[in-house]
């Protein structure tokens, strides 16, 4: 696939949510512009329309609309992560990659973010590849699961099946390492 085509896919059919929101956001422009960027990148040249989409998406990720013209640098980690998700979903991608979307967030924020991701993925019919080491997140979000070690897939299957009956020693180690609350 040519690079031009690949980069077009990155702006349209694919979305990437980075572990560190700073990698996925444009930190020097406002939240609204961050959401609008992908629309402008695919040729939207109507300010009113871009603005309306930005408002709509910030609402969907439960952001305070009073912050639409603020810089992402002034946001908390959870807000930055939600902004990143809005920014990716605005062009209605079909496949979204998420790299540790909840790591580094405090647990209450994690829970709301997971709820949000699950809701959006369900309602928009998006396929989502989530990389995480948090087995709680895995159980909540995913239908299918791949366990990787040293760059290789060591086990894969339905999430419940793998977590409840791990076959590979590494998966067994992972599952048995969860701290009981």
């Amino acid at each position, binding site marked *: 696939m040519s690079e*031009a085509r690949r*980069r077009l896919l990155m702006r349209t059919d694919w979305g990437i949510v980075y572990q560190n929101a700073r990698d996925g956001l444009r930190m020097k422009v*406002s939240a609204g512009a961050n959401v609008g960027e992908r629309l402008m*990148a695919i040729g939207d040249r109507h300010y009113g329309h871009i603005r309306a989409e930005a408002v709509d998406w910030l609402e969907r990720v439960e952001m305070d609309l009073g912050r639409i*013209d603020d810089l992402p640098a002034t946001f908390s980690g959870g807000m930055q992560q939600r902004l990143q998700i809005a920014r990716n979903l605005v062009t209605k991608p079909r496949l979204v990659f998420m790299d540790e979307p909840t790591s580094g967030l405090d647990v209450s924020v994690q829970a709301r973010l997971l709820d949000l991701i699950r809701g959006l993925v369900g309602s928009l019919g998006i396929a989502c590849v989530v990389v995480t080491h948090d087995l709680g997140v895995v159980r909540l979000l995913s239908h299918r699961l791949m366990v990787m070690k040293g760059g290789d897939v060591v086990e894969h299957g339905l999430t419940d099946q793998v977590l409840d009956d791990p076959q590979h020693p590494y998966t067994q180690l992972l599952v048995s390492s969860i701290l009981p609350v």
Partner: protein
Amino acid sequence: MPTVIPHPTASTATAAAPQRLEGYNFAYLDEQTKRMIRRALLKAVAVPGYQVPFGSREMPLPYGWGTGGIQVTAAVIGPDDTLKVIDQGADDTTNAVNIRRFFAKTAGVATTDRTVDASIIQTRHRIPETPLTEDQILVYQVPIPEPLRQLEPREAETRKMHALEEYGVMHVSLYEDIAKFGRITKSYNYPVRVNGRYVMAPSPIPKFDNPKMDRMPALQLFGAGREKRLYAVPPYTEVKSLDFEDHPFEVETWEQDCALCGAGDSYLDEVIVDDKGTRMFVCSDSDYCRERREAGHQGDGGPA
């Protein structure tokens, strides 16, 4: 006030060609360098708006003072050319005077203040008000040739963005202006799209001058010495300023006319005339203003 101080050499007519200095090659640069620059210019003209890398030389003036423009002028000037140099529209500012003298000495060419008499006009930050013709070349001095630079610091990435026509990010900065101020506030170096393809920095001319670039009969050449880039807009090429459908491109307007010549259609500079802060608005294009005054036009003279 720059517009009324008579320039030492500023005879209104074309000055006679002065004697050329001994010991320098014609127009300072050696022939191999001029050839290299001309090759780059040919490529630039063939691909309007594309930034062509070139081997920028050390020039006897500091970066930021027109080292790019001066090399382009040196590469295209011939003994029969008549050179005009302007800085912010005026012929008598330091930068313009020095560059004009430089070519008078090293190339022995005739120089002029009159836009209509010039065959090559080197400019910093303005396009003359008098429409240019097919027989003229306009050379711009460019500090930052990359319009995407502020949004994307990596050169490798900006080149890729140009190659793939990924220009959405240009509109992000315009969006920011409207979100913050209700209108596009960028007033100079306003990005343009050339020939429907490359997004180009028009050099820090006021956006008032942007419409003049569109389908201009004269050849427009741009030189950035420090950044080592050349680009060009061939005659009669479409140059469109970026905007939004619901926030179209607009130029600056003034409530008053020029205080000296009464022009209502030229770019005006605000000039403070005393210690009390009294101000007047005068044409930034000193040649245009003088010609109008010579033709009998008069402004209201500004503050009494």
